[in-house]
């Protein structure tokens, strides 16, 4: 299935056309918010990071901000820094500019404070929005799509209905040459052998075991029980008993094809097909990693009811049970609950999610977009200093 998207200079295709305002450090958050509030077509991504971070953490924050800026759903970018931060705004801006899109940079200490930066930022945003508004949607092939698959607020029906249905969608998109990113390493613990069995080669197989071990050891070395944080209380209430049970349901979202590669958090994959990204089970952090990795659309299954969205990617919400679908209809796009009651098959729902992915790629707004959900959270590895 083809779709109409925004062709970018780097050859990638966007399904949205945002002007992104990026604070390179938390100190610039309110200034970015003030500009985004004023200027139609812009979106800001406030976050807590960018300074007082150890090298590996600063590198991850920078990689995330650069990746989100490069995302094909973004037409143009304004990066704002303070001037003395670790994650330097001009470095972030110049890396994003490698994609060929218009990128501007402002530094608060150079501009002379908040009101002056906001004033200058509004002027720049006006020009960028004007540029973006002239871009037109053009015919694009499905192999230019990267679909992120995510689950949050799972219940027992997630693994029985919504996740296997999304797995069908994943297989269909991969058959058309597209890419699926399966994330949430924590929620693959106990199901890694299933993914490893499907690894394309030894290197990928070893990498799968490596990211699982790394995540599991992080808890074990702290002497902690992951089960106190994941599964979450609502997962237990929904019938999930152990992390292994949750994981076995979780990995079904990726479908049944070979695992072509494993990427780090926020890393842009170079392989097409099914790719794993090492993200935590925290949904806002995981989805931020996905959009930094170039994901244009996220398909998100939920059993308990999760409203999260993304500042630049439409998020399609798939309810695992009919009770949730009717209760939170304002947040849910698709009902997979009819699988549980036997009214529909996994294949049928998977195909309807697939069709919805293309409607959304063509511009149909998802419930998360209509409700204004723009959650953005960068995964943090170490403490602040």
């Amino acid at each position, binding site marked *: 299935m083809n779709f109409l998207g925004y062709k970018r200079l780097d050859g990638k295709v966007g399904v949205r056309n945002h002007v992104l305002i990026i604070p390179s450090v938390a100190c610039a958050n309110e200034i970015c918010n003030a500009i985004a509030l004023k200027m139609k077509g812009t979106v800001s991504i406030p976050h807590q990071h960018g300074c007082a971070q150890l090298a590996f953490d600063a590198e991850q924050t920078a990689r995330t901000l650069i990746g989100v800026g490069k995302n094909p759903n973004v037409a143009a970018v304004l990066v704002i820094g303070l001037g003395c931060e670790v994650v330097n705004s001009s470095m972030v801006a110049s890396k994003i500019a490698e994609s060929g899109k218009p990128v501007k940079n402002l530094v608060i200490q150079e501009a002379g404070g908040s009101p002056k930066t906001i004033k200058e930022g509004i002027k720049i945003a006006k020009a960028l929005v004007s540029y973006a508004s002239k871009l037109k949607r053009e015919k694009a092939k499905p192999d230019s799509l990267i679909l992120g698959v995510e689950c949050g607020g799972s219940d*027992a029906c997630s693994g029985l209905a919504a996740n296997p249905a999304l797995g069908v969608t994943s297989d269909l998109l991969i058959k058309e040459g597209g890419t699926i990113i399966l994330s949430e390493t*924590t929620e693959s613990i*106990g199901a890694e052998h299933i993914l490893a069995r499907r690894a394309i080669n030894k290197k990928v197989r070893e990498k799968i075991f490596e990211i699982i071990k790394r995540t599991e050891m992080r808890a074990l070395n702290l002497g*902690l*029980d992951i089960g106190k944080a994941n599964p979450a209380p609502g997962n237990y209430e929904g019938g999930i*008993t152990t992390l*292994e049970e949750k994981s*076995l*349901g979780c990995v079904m979202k990726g479908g049944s094809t070979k695992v072509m590669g494993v990427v780090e958090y926020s890393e842009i994959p170079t392989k097409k097909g099914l790719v794993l990204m090492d993200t935590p089970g925290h949904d806002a952090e995981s989805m931020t990693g996905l959009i930094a990795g170039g994901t244009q659309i996220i398909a998100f299954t939920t059993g308990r009811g999760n409203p999260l969205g993304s500042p630049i990617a439409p998020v399609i919400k798939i309810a695992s049970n009919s009770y949730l679908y009717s209760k939170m209809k304002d947040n849910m796009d698709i009902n997979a609950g009819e699988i549980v*009651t036997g009214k529909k098959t996994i294949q049928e729902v998977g195909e309807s999610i697939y069709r919805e992915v293309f409607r959304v790629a063509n511009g149909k707004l998802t419930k998360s977009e209509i409700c204004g959900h723009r959650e953005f959270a960068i995964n943090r590895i170490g403490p602040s200093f």
Partner: protein
Amino acid sequence: MSKAIKNLILCHPKDNVATASSPLNTGTLLSLTEQKTIVAKEQIPFGHKIALQKIRKGGPVIKYGERIGRTIREIKPGEWVHIHNVVGERGRGKGRKKG
């Protein structure tokens, strides 16, 4: 692939638990095959698991044809299988529950 039986979903032929596709009252008779029936020994909420056979203390709980944890006491057929009688075995440091 999972199999839907009236009121239950069995994910894999190897499984020793099934999922309630509607809330089960104590005493509900469930037909697994023409020959094999099971009676719900207690209330089982929607989406929760029921034991299809006796599982010994420390024995594996199998769903999706895979091990999802182990029991902390013997579980009889028809009993509710959840966090009160099963523990996970992965990602659990010293803060874990005994069992």
